[in-house]
C-alpha cells in the first residue's frame, strides 16, 4: 500500500476510535497457598497469603527457585496448588473448569507464543473465538485492540507473525491477552527477550496502556529494576516460595523487611531510588531547536538568548531529534548544516525512570537527554544536574494506587 494511503487509513482509525469501555480489574487473593511437586520435601511455594488489589500491577520478583512463576501459574491453574485457595473477585478459581477460567484471564509470556500459522488479526481473535463471539464483534474488537497497542490495523491485521519485529510481536501478544477483556492478566517476563532500549519503550507503552485499561496484573520478573519501575506493589519471594515482603516499591527500598530483601534489592538502594522517579517528574529544560537549512545567524541568536546552553538541538521537519550542533559550529554565516551535528544519547520518554535516563545520558558525550513523546517528537531536555537534584530530595512520585472498589 502506498505510504499516503496508509496514513489516511491510520487517521481514519483514529477518528472512529471509540473509548474503551473495558471491565476494570478484580481482586486476586492468595489464601495459604502451598505447592509441592511430587514427593519433594521442600515446597516450591510455601503458605502464601497476600491480596492483589483491583487494577494494580503486582510484580512477583525473586531469585530462581523462589517459585514466582509457579505462583503466577497457579492463578490460571496451569499449575494447581497442593493446598490453600486462590480467588478472583471473591470466586475460587477451582469453581470453574480450567479452560473456562483461562479464557477469562489474559496470558502473556516472554517468547510471546504467537501462532505462526495465523495472521495477526486471527491471533488476537483467538480467545473471542474460543468464547464463541459473533464474527462482526470479533472483527471490531481486533481493530480496536491493534489500535490500542499502537499497531495500525490496516497494515498489520493480515500479516503473519514471522513478518513482525520482536517489539511488534510483543505488542500483539498484549493485544491478544486483552482480547476478551479479562479482569486479570498474567505476564511472565514479558519484556525479557528484548534489548534494554526497546524494553524501556515497551514498558512505557505498557504503563500508558494500563492507565487506560486498569487490569489487575500479576507480573513475573527476575529484574529488580523492572519490578521497581512497573509495580504498584512488589511481592519479593525467597527460595522455597516464601513471601519475604509485599509492599510498594518505595516502602521496600526505604524499609527492607529482612536481610534477604536488603541483599536482594542490592547494595545500591540509594541508586535504585532513581528507578522510582520518572523523567516526567522533573522540570524539563526547553531546548533551542534548529532545522537543516535555516540561517545560522538565527540559530546563534536564539542559542545565545537561551543563556548557558552550549548545544542546539537539530530536529527534522516532524520535530524528531536528529543530533546536537555545538555553539562553536554556529560562528559562520551560512545555513545550518546537518553534517555538523553530533549524535546525542538515545531519546527517553516521560515514563522512563531517572535511572535508565541517567545511564543513557552517561553513555554519550553530550550529557543532555532528549525527552520525546510516543511519536518521537521533542518534549524537552533533561540534564544530569536535574537528576542529581532529584536524588537529594525524597523521590517525588505521584500516588499510583488505585482505590479498590
Amino acid at each position, binding site marked *: 500500500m502506498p505510504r499516503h494511503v496508509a496514513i489516511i487509513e491510520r487517521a481514519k482509525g483514529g477518528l472512529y476510535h471509540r473509548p474503551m469501555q473495558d471491565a476494570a480489574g478484580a481482586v486476586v487473593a492468595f489464601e495459604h497457598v502451598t505447592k509441592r511437586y511430587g514427593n519433594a520435601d521442600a515446597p516450591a511455594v510455601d503458605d502464601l497469603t497476600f491480596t492483589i488489589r483491583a487494577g494494580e500491577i503486582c510484580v512477583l520478583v525473586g531469585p530462581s527457585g523462589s517459585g514466582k512463576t509457579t505462583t503466577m501459574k497457579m492463578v*490460571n491453574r*496451569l499449575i494447581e496448588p497442593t493446598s490453600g485457595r486462590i480467588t478472583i473477585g471473591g470466586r475460587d478459581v477451582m469453581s470453574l473448569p*480450567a*479452560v*473456562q*477460567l*483461562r*479464557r*477469562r484471564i489474559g*496470558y502473556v*509470556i*516472554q*517468547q*510471546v*507464543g*504467537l*501462532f*505462526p*500459522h*495465523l495472521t495477526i488479526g486471527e491471533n488476537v481473535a*483467538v*480467545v473471542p473465538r*474460543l468464547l464463541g463471539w459473533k464474527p462482526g464483534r470479533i472483527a471490531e474488537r481486533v481493530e480496536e485492540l491493534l489500535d490500542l497497542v499502537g499497531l495500525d490495523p490496516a497494515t498489520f491485521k493480515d500479516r*503473519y*507473525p*514471522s*513478518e513482525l519485529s520482536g517489539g511488534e510481536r510483543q505488542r500483539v501478544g498484549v493485544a*491478544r491477552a486483552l482480547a476478551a477483556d479479562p479482569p486479570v492478566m*498474567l505476564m511472565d517476563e514479558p519484556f525479557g527477550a528484548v534489548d534494554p532500549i526497546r524494553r524501556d519503550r515497551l514498558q512505557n507503552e505498557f504503563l500508558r496502556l494500563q492507565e487506560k485499561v486498569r487490569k489487575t496484573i500479576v507480573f513475573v520478573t527476575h529484574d529488580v529494576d523492572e519490578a521497581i519501575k512497573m509495580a504498584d506493589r512488589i511481592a519479593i519471594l525467597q527460595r522455597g516460595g516464601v513471601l519475604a515482603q509485599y509492599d510498594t516499591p518505595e516502602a521496600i527500598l526505604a524499609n527492607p523487611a529482612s536481610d534477604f530483601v536488603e541483599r536482594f534489592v542490592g547494595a545500591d538502594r540509594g541508586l535504585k531510588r532513581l528507578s522510582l522517579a520518572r523523567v516526567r517528574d522533573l522540570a524539563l529544560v526547553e531546548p533551542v531547536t534548529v532545522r537543516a537549512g535555516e540561517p545560522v545567524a538565527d540559530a546563534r541568536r536564539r542559542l545565545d538568548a537561551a543563556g548557558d546552553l552550549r548545544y542546539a538541538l537539530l530536529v527534522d521537519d516532524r520535530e524528531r531529534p536528529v543530533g546536537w550542533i555545538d555553539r562553536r559550529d554556529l560562528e559562520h554565516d551560512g545555513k545550518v548544516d546537518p553534517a555538523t551535528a553530533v549524535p546525542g544519547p538515545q531519546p527517553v520518554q516521560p515514563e522512563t525512570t531517572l535511572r535508565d535516563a541517567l545511564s543513557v545520558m552517561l553513555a554519550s558525550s553530550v550529557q543532555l537527554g532528549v525527552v520525546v513523546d510516543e511519536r518521537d517528537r521533542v518534549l524537552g531536555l533533561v540534564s544530569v544536574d536535574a537528576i542529581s537534584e532529584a536524588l537529594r530530595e525524597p523521590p517525588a512520585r505521584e500516588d499510583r494506587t488505585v482505590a479498590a472498589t
Partner: protein
Amino acid sequence: MNDEPFIRWDWIVDNLDEIGRRLGEHVLLTVIAVGIGFLISFGLALLIRRYRRLEAPIVGVGGILYSIPSLALFAMLVPITGIQNPLTAEIALVSYTILILLRNILAGFDGVPRDVLEAADGMGFTRTQRLWRVELPIALPVMVAGLRVATVTIVGLVTVTALIGLGGLGYFIVDVGYRRFFLTATIVGSVGAVLLAIFADRGFVLLQRALTPWAARRRAAD
C-alpha cells in the same frame, strides 16, 4: 531381433487403453497404501504423544517392517492372503509407509514451539482444540514432506507387485517386458512410473505451499 526398433511407437498407440488402465491401477494402489499408511501412522503418533514410552518399540517395529525386502514380504504373505489379491499388495505397501510417515508426523508435532503450546494452554484451548487448531496446522508442512517421500517410494514399489499379478505399470516391466523380452513395454512401464513419481513429488510441493502460506512468507522474509 536385429531389425526390431528401439521403441515400437505403434505398439504404444495400440495399447493406450491398457496403459491407461494400468496407470489407474498404479495410482489407486499408491493412494490406498499411502492413505491407509497415513491413518495408521497418525493414530500411532497420537498414541505415542500420550504414552511417550511407546515411541521406541513402535518406531522399532516400523523400522523392521521397512527393512524386510519386498520380495520376502510378498513370499510370506501370498500363502496367507493369496496371489493377485490387492490385499496382499496393500499389506506390504502400507507397512513400508509406516516408518516414513510416523517419523515425519512425530517430527512435525515435536517441531511445534514450546512457547506456542504454552500460550495455547494459557489461553484456554482444550487438548483437542489445541491438537486440531494449533499443533496440526503447524506440523503440517513436515507431515506433507513425509507424505511426499512415502508416495514417491510407493510409486516405485508398486511395480514390484507385478510379481503377484498386480503391479500397475509394473505389469509392463515384468509381464510384458521381462517375461516376453519386449523392450518397448519395459520402457513404457519404467518411464511411466518415473513420470508418475515426479508428478506426485511436484504435486506435494505445491500442496505444501498452498497449505502453509505463512511458512512461504517466512522464507521470503529471511
